[in-house]
């Protein structure tokens, strides 16, 4: 069995197709003994026979051999022009990109101008002067494709110029031509290969198109375009001489085009790829939802606003399935602010999204656990059992969310007022003007001055702090009982951060708005300011939870202790700076989690049991849990 790296698997089929066409063209004299231009008037339009596999055309020429030799012409013209245009264009582009200045002006602007011309027009202009023929075609196509290469090479070189290894080569005193040819060129080859295949496909099309018009290859030389042109005259009598070159041409272009697509996917994984996700979709086999009850405080759950139990959210990645959050259980009481703390990648955002059923599908999915919400009408809603419509009613109305990046979380094409009003229109079923009036009040309540005017502003006309105030106004619009704030201050300037925190605290303390808040952050300073209780997450699990003062005063998990120790700290009495503590080691990748405690490899208290099996949650104080079997030693 051939064992091919998955990376190359998508390139191989079209590559084989293209190679086959090239091979048939190359070996034409060995495959057929017939001369493609030999006429035989007595055998005009003869049907297929053993001697003439595809029959003969209106001059009695062998169609099969004309097809094969036609491929030679197409490919020769395409390869010649793609190569010569490539050599010229790449040289121009690299020089323009590397040196800048006048070289840049001439090469790139000139290329832009040629590119702003419909290609076939330029071709026809030159054919008018030089007359048709294979040589003219080669010249025309070279001029036509040069700018495309120049532009790609220019852009790539520009981004390469400042990279370290290019700088290094320059510092080492390599001659410029060496840097260009041996350092830069090999590194920008990928996009140029894509450009090459695009050019070949386009050249085949233009050659056949011009030949079809009688302005390309000159008869009696065979060319697919020319064959179609000639066969058109008698297609009513026998359509096959017309169909063969049509099929050959289409297959060739299709093969080259799919090679282009595959190469593009290969060299530019950022582009939306059909293959990658299609393959992933096939591997999406999730474990059935298991009822996985974990220890939650039964008393608390009863009066809780939100209680989750055994929440598990999984993602499919190229490396396999990973658990972004695992066995996450917590509660939020009415009016309470619970902080969910952890480093990036610890699963805190995914936990927040899971509560609202917003995990990005199809790659991610909440695979087990329950989320129960006490609605405003005092009913218990099981969110994980809701269908789309049920979720829509909960989102924005019962639970609202404030996101990290206000700029990208607001839609750039609508004024902010419209975006605030949207929620109200769908949940409250009120008219647009009414909703906009409410939006004005909401903007005022989040401290935006002149709100009647500002609702007409677009997001990009506001500062980051203002945008986040808009997001908060949006979240408040339907008076939700729970707000999930996902790092609402992280993307903002420090002074603005304080203002937004202040705003959230003030709003929460207002009598007419009582809502619980799940505050997701990595910043323990923020936690101390706003939270009543803290949940500490590490590698998808909650490792410690407790009231904020207890947890800060006497942490019961080595990870929490490490986090607290790494807060920058200045001793005010002496003015001395304490050396900043850093937890040793790094966070393990989620696909390589150890079987036991995920923190064990970095923990100086870890014992054999920690590595072997997952520690249970233990009560360490009033409403205070830890997933560390050695919490006594830690506090000791």
């Amino acid at each position: 069995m051939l064992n091919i790296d998955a990376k190359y698997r998508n390139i191989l089929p079209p590559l084989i197709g293209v190679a086959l066409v090239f091979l048939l063209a190359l070996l034409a004299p060995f495959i057929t003994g017939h001369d493609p231009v030999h006429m035989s008037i007595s055998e005009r339009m003869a049907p297929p026979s053993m001697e003439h596999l595809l029959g003969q055309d209106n001059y009695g020429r062998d169609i099969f051999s004309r097809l094969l030799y036609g491929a030679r012409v197409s490919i020769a013209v395409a390869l010649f022009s793609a190569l010569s245009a490539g050599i010229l264009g790449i040289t121009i582009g690299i020089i323009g990109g590397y040196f800048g200045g006048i070289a840049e002006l001439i090469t790139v602007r000139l290329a832009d101008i040629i590119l702003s011309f419909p290609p076939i027009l330029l071709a026809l202009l030159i054919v008018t002067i030089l007359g048709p023929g294979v040589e003219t075609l080669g010249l025309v196509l070279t001029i036509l494709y040069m700018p495309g290469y120049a532009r790609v090479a220019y852009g790539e070189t520009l981004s390469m110029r400042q990279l370290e290894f290019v700088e290094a080569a320059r510092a080492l005193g390599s001659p410029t031509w060496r840097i260009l040819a041996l350092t830069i060129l090999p590194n920008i080859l990928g996009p140029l290969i894509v450009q090459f295949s695009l050019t070949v496909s386009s050249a085949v099309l233009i050659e056949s198109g011009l030949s079809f018009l009688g302005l390309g290859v000159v008869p009696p030389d065979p060319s697919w375009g020319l064959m179609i042109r000639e066969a058109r005259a008698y297609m009513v009598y026998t359509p096959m001489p017309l169909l063969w070159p049509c099929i050959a041409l289409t297959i060739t272009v299709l093969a080259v085009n799919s090679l282009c697509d595959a190469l593009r996917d290969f060299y530019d994984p950022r582009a939306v790829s059909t293959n990658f996700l299609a393959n992933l979709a096939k591997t999406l086999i999730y474990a059935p939802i298991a009822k996985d009850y974990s220890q939650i405080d039964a008393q608390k759950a009863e009066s809780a606003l939100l209680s989750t139990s055994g929440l598990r959210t999984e993602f499919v990645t190229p490396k396999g399935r990973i658990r972004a959050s695992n066995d996450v259980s917590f509660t939020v009481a009415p009016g309470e602010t619970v902080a969910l703390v952890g480093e990036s990648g610890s699963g805190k955002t995914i936990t927040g999204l899971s509560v609202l059923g917003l995990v990005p599908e199809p790659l991610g999915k909440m695979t087990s656990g329950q989320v129960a919400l006490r609605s405003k009408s005092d009913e218990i809603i099981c969110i994980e059992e809701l269908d789309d419509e049920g979720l829509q009613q909960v989102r924005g109305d019962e639970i609202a969310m404030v996101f990290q990046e206000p700029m990208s979380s607001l839609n750039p094409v609508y004024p902010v007022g419209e975006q605030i009003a949207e929620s109200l229109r769908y949940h409250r079923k009120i008219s647009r003007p009414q909703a906009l009036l409410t939006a004005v009040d909401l903007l005022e309540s989040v401290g935006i001055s002149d709100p009647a005017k500002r609702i007409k502003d677009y997001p990009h006309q506001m500062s980051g702090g203002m945008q986040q105030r808009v997001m908060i106004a949006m979240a408040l619009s339907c008076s939700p009982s729970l707000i999930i704030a996902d790092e609402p201050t992280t993307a903002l300037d420090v002074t603005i951060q304080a203002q937004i925190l202040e705003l959230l605290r003030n709003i929460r303390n207002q009598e007419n708005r009582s809502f619980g808040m799940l505050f997701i952050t990595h910043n323990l300073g923020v936690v101390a300011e706003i939270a009543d209780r803290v949940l500490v997450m590490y590698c998808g699990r909650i490792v410690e939870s407790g009231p904020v003062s207890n947890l800060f005063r006497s942490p019961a998990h080595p990870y929490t202790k490490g986090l607290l120790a790494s807060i920058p700290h200045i001793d005010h009495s002496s003015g001395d700076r304490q050396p900043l503590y850093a937890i040793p080691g790094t966070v393990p990748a989620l696909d390589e989690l150890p079987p036991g405690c995920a923190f064990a490899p970095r923990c100086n208290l870890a014992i054999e049991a920690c590595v072997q099996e997952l520690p249970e949650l233990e009560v360490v104080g009033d409403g205070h849990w830890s997933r560390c079997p050695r919490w006594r030693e830690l506090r000791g």
Partner: protein
Amino acid sequence: MWRYIIKRVFIALMLVFVVTSIVFLVIHLIPGDPAMLLLSGGGVDPAPEVVDAMRRRLGLDLPIWTQYINYVTGILQGDFGTSFQDDHPVAEEIAKRLPRTIELILAATALSILIGVPLGILAALQHGKYVDRTLALGAGLMLSVPVFVTGTLMVLLFAQELRWVPAGGFVAFSRDPVQHLIFLLMPAATIAIGFSAAIFRMTRTTVLETLKRDWVRTARAKGLPRSVVIRRHVVRNAMGPVMTVIGLQMGTLLGGTVLVEYVFNWPGLSGFLVVAVESRDYPEVQGIILVISFLFIMLNLLVDLLYSVLDPRIRLE
């Protein structure tokens, strides 16, 4: 906003100037005597008197600056010279045929948008599923069939075999509107096969990109119904880039209609270009190419301005 418009218009005018100059220069840049080149062919060298006459006729005997000034003043007055064959003013013929080419392009674009945009949105929303993969496969195939192959095969099938429609031709709309539209249908559909596939791909990619945007998540978090999220926060945002590409591609169609007009005997500007090139009627070729290039540049300008209307970030800059 006004600064942006003025800047774009200025760039477009510069481009018109450069293109005009290039079209003028091409005949001089190609090695050899242009008059000789235009008359050569068939392996026989033309007689010197004929070459001289041609040189005078094209004004090639004048100094190059005088030639250039004559050429530009001519264009500014709408004078593109006269045809070699019948001394007919080129501008007149262009004026007669241009609307037909524009009509064909508009019809083909409308048809392509109607097919490509909805299917592109559908494929993106069904990403990775059967519908998406089938549509993407179909689009790949449709993009690979050369336009003259599609055209010829459509003539063979619908005109010759099935006899549903005429093989090609033209009737003025004022004379017989129904027949006019029937003649328009086949060339427009031929262009639309490839063009709708291009629009489909573009729409699909853009919608997929937009679906990943944070504001879409915000819209979902607000509890908006799925249809509203798709319409207001995905499709509306994706249409800016899609319309830009459609506009730019329409520009390429200005050249691409050459083959289709030829296949269907549509008496537009591009088909006329083929005749002009065949007879190597330089003034005609030059005039047609200039007019198409102007249109192309104006279309790009229009797309730019339209885009600024669709995207407030540019509008208010």
